[in-house]
């Protein structure tokens, strides 16, 4: 008689909530009549994500390893899960926006129809929408939340796939510019699969070296019989796999293409949530499994951080597409986040809470920024060309103002959440003596400042372009998103105290 592994359902509520919602969503998709699907699916997805969010708050403070040691439910995990769920809820709202596109949805009516075919053209304006995107997204959210709680390389891998596979799909579901969208999907898929192969091989090597895939056990074996070549190689490959998801240079190459090609709400979702999830996993891997041997990977991460910041900042300078520009900005931010990871020191530094806060702040701001992108439209969908934004401030001061504020936050100007986050992570880095890294980061953020500024200059100081884009009137969902993100960006910049304390209290990793 084998007894079942301990399973603390309470600790798993968030996950159960989200996955439950996703599964129900599948059923709805297959059985509910078409006209009720859209509202039902949106409702379901929101219930799932918001429910997940709330339940994490309810069980906040728990710190245990459960599911037979496969899952670690701890402060950091819950904080990240909450962040993911919350950001996901906002993204879902963006998905659900029906006011902007004349066809009432950003997603393709029928993905199976070849792009550009007569049928496709007639479907373009058809108000019929496919709703599979909601359960898919919900599954991805579940995968992400699982990812950050994984206490076991296998679970981590499964979670990785669970969050990736739906994303691959929904990247290709744009209603307009379908060629770009599909190309983005293909690229994301192939490269993602390629990366997960690396991750998997790393898993295998680590398993071979330590005889276990449980993070805690890896930690023990590392501290007892040191780090052999096999183990180190494994670690390297695992890092590659995770860095890919976090879009850290030099594994960033997919990011700009996919961000540009994917439907903007999806881009927002990926930019915010995927990053959070990936960094959650990175933190776990590096500190729970390899924290005692941090001397092995610290120099590497140090270097990668610099590369990522420089690549992001420099390549961003000459972008001509807003979404692409934001993609490079997200690469640079990945670098800044890594300074926070460095700042974790021997796991004691303030780096963990700093990183948690930064992820939250960055996620909110970036969703807001993409939300604004969805507003600025011309004849065929969103006007993402920088040149089209010229003189936007005259057309719609409010939109321009919101965008400017969010950009300043991304640039890290004081009184915005971006500044608080930067301050936190750089402080962490300097505390552990990594001041050259911090200085480098600061210089690169000055460089990055240029391209954020470029957009501001265009919007405010340039004469409006002829036949420029119109600013759509956002429906309720987008309005909520904008309100929340802007408010949060401001609050986290002006009175971040409480949230910082929260992150501080949450900053524990078990396993």
């Amino acid at each position, binding site marked *: 008689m084998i007894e079942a592994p301990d399973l603390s359902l309470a600790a798993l509520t968030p996950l159960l909530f989200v996955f439950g919602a996703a599964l129900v969503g599948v059923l709805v998709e297959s059985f509910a009549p078409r006209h009720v699907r859209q509202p039902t699916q949106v409702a379901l997805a929101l219930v799932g994500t918001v429910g997940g969010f709330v339940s994490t708050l309810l069980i906040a403070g728990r710190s245990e390893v459960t599911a037979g040691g496969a899952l670690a439910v701890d402060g950091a995990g819950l904080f990240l899960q909450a962040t993911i769920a919350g950001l996901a809820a906002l993204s879902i709202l963006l998905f659900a926006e029906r006011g902007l596109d004349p066809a009432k949805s950003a997603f393709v009516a029928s993905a199976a129809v070849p792009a550009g075919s007569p049928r496709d053209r007639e479907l373009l304006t058809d108000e019929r929408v496919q709703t599979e995107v909601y359960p898919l997204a919900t599954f991805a959210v579940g995968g992400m939340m699982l990812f950050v709680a994984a206490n076991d390389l296998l679970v981590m891998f499964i979670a990785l796939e669970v969050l990736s596979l739906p994303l691959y799909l929904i990247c290709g579901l744009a209603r307009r510019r379908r060629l770009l969208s599909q190309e983005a999907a293909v690229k994301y898929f192939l490269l993602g699969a390629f990366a997960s192969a690396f991750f998997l091989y790393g898993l295998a090597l680590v398993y071979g070296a330590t005889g276990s895939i449980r993070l805690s056990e890896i930690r023990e074996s590392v501290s007892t019989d040191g780090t052999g070549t096999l183990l180190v190689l494994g670690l390297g490959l695992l890092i590659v796999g995770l860095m890919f998801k976090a879009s850290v240079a030099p594994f960033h190459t997919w990011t700009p293409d996919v961000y540009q090609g994917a439907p903007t709400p999806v881009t927002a979702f990926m930019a915010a949530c995927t990053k959070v999830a990936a960094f959650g996993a990175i933190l776990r891997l590096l500190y729970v499994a390899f924290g005692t041997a941090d001397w092995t990977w610290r120099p590497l991460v140090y270097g990668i951080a610099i590369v990522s910041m420089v690549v992001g900042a420099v390549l961003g300078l000459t972008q001509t597409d807003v979404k692409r520009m934001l993609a490079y900005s997200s690469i640079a931010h990945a670098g800044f986040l890594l300074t926070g990871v460095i700042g974790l020191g021997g796991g004691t530094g303030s780096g963990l809470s700093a990183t948690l806060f930064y992820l939250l702040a960055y996620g909110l701001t970036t969703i807001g920024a993409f939300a604004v992108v969805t507003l600025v439209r011309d004849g065929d969908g969103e006007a993402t060309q920088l040149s089209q934004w010229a003189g936007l401030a005259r057309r719609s001061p409010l939109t321009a103002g919101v965008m400017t504020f969010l950009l300043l936050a991304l640039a890290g100007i004081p009184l915005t959440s971006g500044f*608080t986050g930067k301050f936190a992570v*750089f*402080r962490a880095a300097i505390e552990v003596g990594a001041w050259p890294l911090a200085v480098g980061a600061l210089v690169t953020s000055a460089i990055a400042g240029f391209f954020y500024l470029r957009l501001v*200059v265009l919007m405010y100081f340039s004469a409006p372009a002829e036949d420029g884009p119109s600013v759509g009137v956002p429906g309720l969902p987008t309005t909520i998103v904008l309100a929340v993100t802007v408010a949060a960006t401001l609050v986290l910049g002006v009175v*971040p105290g409480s949230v910082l304390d929260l992150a501080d209290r949450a900053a524990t990793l078990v396993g």
Partner: protein
Amino acid sequence: MSDFPWLLAMIAVPAVGGAAVAALPRGRDAAAKQVALAVSGLVLLLAVLATVAFDTGGERFQLTTSVSWIPAFGVDFALGVDGIALVMLLLIGVLVPVVVIASWADTGPEGRSMKAYFAWLLVLEAMMVGVFAATDVFLFYVFFEAMLVPMYFIIGSFGGPRRQFAATKFFLYSLLGGLVMLASVIGLYVVSNTELGEGTFAFDALRQLDIDPGVQKLLFLGFFVAFAIKAPLVPFHTWLPDSGAQAPIGGGVLLVGVLDKVGTFGFIRYCLPLFPDASRTFAPWILGLAVAGIIYGAILAMGQTDLKRFVTYTSIAHFGFIALGIFAFTAEGGTGAVLYMVNHGISTGILFLAVGMLISRGGSARISDYGGVAKKAPVLAGVFLVAGLASLALPGTNSFVSEFLVLLGSFPTRPVFTVVATVGIVLAALYVLLVVQRTMHGPSRGVVVDKPFPDLRRRELAVVVPLIALIIGLGVYPQPLLALIDPAVAATMTDIGSDPAGTTPATAEQGAN
């Protein structure tokens, strides 16, 4: 009376006022002006009352307000002023209303509504007050950076033809410096964390730290770069001519008159007291830059063909004097330097305004387009001359006292640098009189003939008269300001290990030993 939160009020009033102006419906420019004038006038009143409430004999920092802001970082929202900051607040209080009146008739490029301009002016005022009134380094930094935003929009939206370039250059250059400083700010916090057990940003606490010299050097450089860009010292100056030339006159006045002072203020408020050893180590180099700036700025000023650029280059020369006075580490030099900050704000302010009045008539900033203005607009010419004389530090004008003090104070410790700097006063005469001759004297030429070129109007007189009054008044009787500044500088000298009482005469020393 002194427990009223003067400083908080001086930040809140313009901030709220700015928001109010921004909230006005489109096209209500007239209302915007009136509100802006009223608000800035109120701030001036507050500044004066605060000065009355300030006790020169009392604590170093007074009128303090402090509430915990971000406990996680040990940051307080702490305000307070010593004499140095207080005189700067007075300067702000005076200049902003003047600028508002001076910009009364301005019209934005491409027919922009000037409403935003006045809103930004008020926001800028709030930020400037904050930057001088902060006694918490983090808070100081926040204002230091946030201050860029309004000025960025003032230049970028209401400036000259190349305003986009100028605004971006201004913002990025300053941002770069600021971020480098941020590294030092954090470093300072970390040091305090290790020394005091819990990190703090409170200036007075940080002043007590004794920091390992090596670390001091690094931290000092971080702060120095930011301030050297802000001030600006040669060779970090090239953003100023661009910004100054493109900025609208009002913005230019505040940019050169107040914003740049944040740099020199930073030297004396933060660099010296926090990093005495490093300051002494680097002093020779900085003095080199300062003196180079005096000569370099003056010579370049002579070579300028654009009136606004001319003014900015004269300022670069003046900032050299200020830095000289600060890094000479004598009470006289320091006091002179601080007084210089105020005086330069006034004298360059009026010079900039006079230039603006010229340009508003001639419609050109090229020096060569003018000539013989004195014939057609004698009063304007007179004002320009007075401004010029003030900027060449003629005795009887305010600048003389400060420049004289700076040189006299620097001579005992740094004779060589001072001698070179003193040559600068000849160059100053040269560049001022050159421009006066080209534009004001000789037969009327260029736009002076083509355009109507009326003499000063009532509103314009209202702009210049108070400034001229200050120029003469402070030139004849600077003592009140000196009395304010003296104790603060003395305290700084104690921090850096110089004799707070001033320079001991060489002969007296011989007598002593």
